[in-house]
């Protein structure tokens, strides 16, 4: 599973970091980025898929999307 966080959409609710703290990090203003070492270009480690999906569903502004599988 690959996920993309669109930081131009993120409004800093912080739900993602509470649902999946190993996937999302917040800055001191509450805005999220993927944790260092994670990327929209690479599959998440399997143990992070379930919390990441929870974060995706709970993001109030839909800043998190699952990337389509290629081929």
């Amino acid at each position, binding site marked *: 599973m690959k996920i993309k966080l669109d*930081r*131009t959409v993120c409004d*800093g609710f912080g739900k993602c970091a509470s649902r999946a703290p190993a996937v999302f990090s917040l*800055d001191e203003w509450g805005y999220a*980025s993927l944790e260092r070492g994670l990327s*929209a*270009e690479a599959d998440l480690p399997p143990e992070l898929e379930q919390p990441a999906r929870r974060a995706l569903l709970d993001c109030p502004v839909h800043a998190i999307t699952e990337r389509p599988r290629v081929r």
Partner: protein
Amino acid sequence: MPTLTTGAHPAVRPRLLRGQAGREDRTAYEAAGGYQPGLAGAGLIAAVAASGLRGRGGGAFPAARKLAVVARQRGEKVVVVNGEEGEPASVKDRWLLRARPHLVIDGALRAAQAVGAGTIYFYVSDAGAAISLDAALAELASIPADLRVWPVEASYVAGEETAAVNALNGRPAKPSEKPPRPFEAGVGGLPTLVSNAETIASLPAISGGRVGEAPSFLLTLSGAVPRPGLYEVPFGIPLGEATEVLGGLAGPARGYVMGGYFAGLLSTRGHHLPLDYDALRAAGSGLGCGAVTVLGADDCPVGVAALLLAYFGRENAGQCGSCFNGTAAMAGVATALACGEAGPAEVARLAHWSGFLPGRGACATLDGAAGVAATLLREFPAEVDAHQREACGTCVATDFLAAGRPFALTPDSIAPPVEAAL
């Protein structure tokens, strides 16, 4: 704005610069060997790879890889020549488009042929560049592609490649989160090559086999030098040689602003550093778009950093929270420091942000701003210390509330806009 000059380093046989003033028309360009058949298709891409050409907009991405990834996709494709040149201290792209439009068009046609694109956009924010391109296109009888000049309002972020694609797709000229990158889904959703005007202008010489062992680039040199200007120089010459031989500065400068604003501040150690992508990056600086501003005795690095960070605070796209908050926060601390009103706690916060914030925006604007803060702290620790006790005379005399574009240049003195020439 300073009056600029043009010139080539003695070791360079210029392929980008041209001595004569005024717009080079089609006859003059063809007389100089332009629009001749040369390497094309995969052969051109291989020659680009062998030349080591990298993106001259500032990203320095290998040009051949960008060409190849678009070329290998099927169906309709698009080429965007990016002449937006958002870095205020750079003039090279505007100069190229105003003075040598046919060189850029020639390169764009070769790029379009190599990747299999039928449409070429010239994405520009400079009215003089747009007029020059229109005049050049009118001089061409038959063109094997659909060429369009696409004006956009100038801004720091409008030249970012996804901002260019967004503007061409009818949206605001602001960056998007990646992926997708333009080569995956660009203009009209089609695979799109977005390439800087100087990068594109480098293709005719490569196609004609005229790139020698000393590849050159356009250096915009300004600030505290007797002869600010646009110079074609070989990669690898020491920065001090450029400032002294070309710029005419007698002795090392107080410091430098590198890569437009993007690569931040550099101390006098830059005097001995070679103008080379990898060497500058290894030294914690960068070549970027090739714009170097020399700081003189009247410039204070702390004050300059404050002005640059304030610019990033105003000119960011206002999209990513880490960026619009982070640039404003760093600008606030840097301005307080310049005014003698920041202490160790504030400087520590600036240091924290400069390390934590890079990578937290959809484009590189926040990275550039964080780099200004990081390079101020690393390159000028004595000045940072001194300003924690009291502001220097230069900073006291500086209006930090004026919404300025420090060291901004215009190419008017070396490539007057067409209207002015009439």
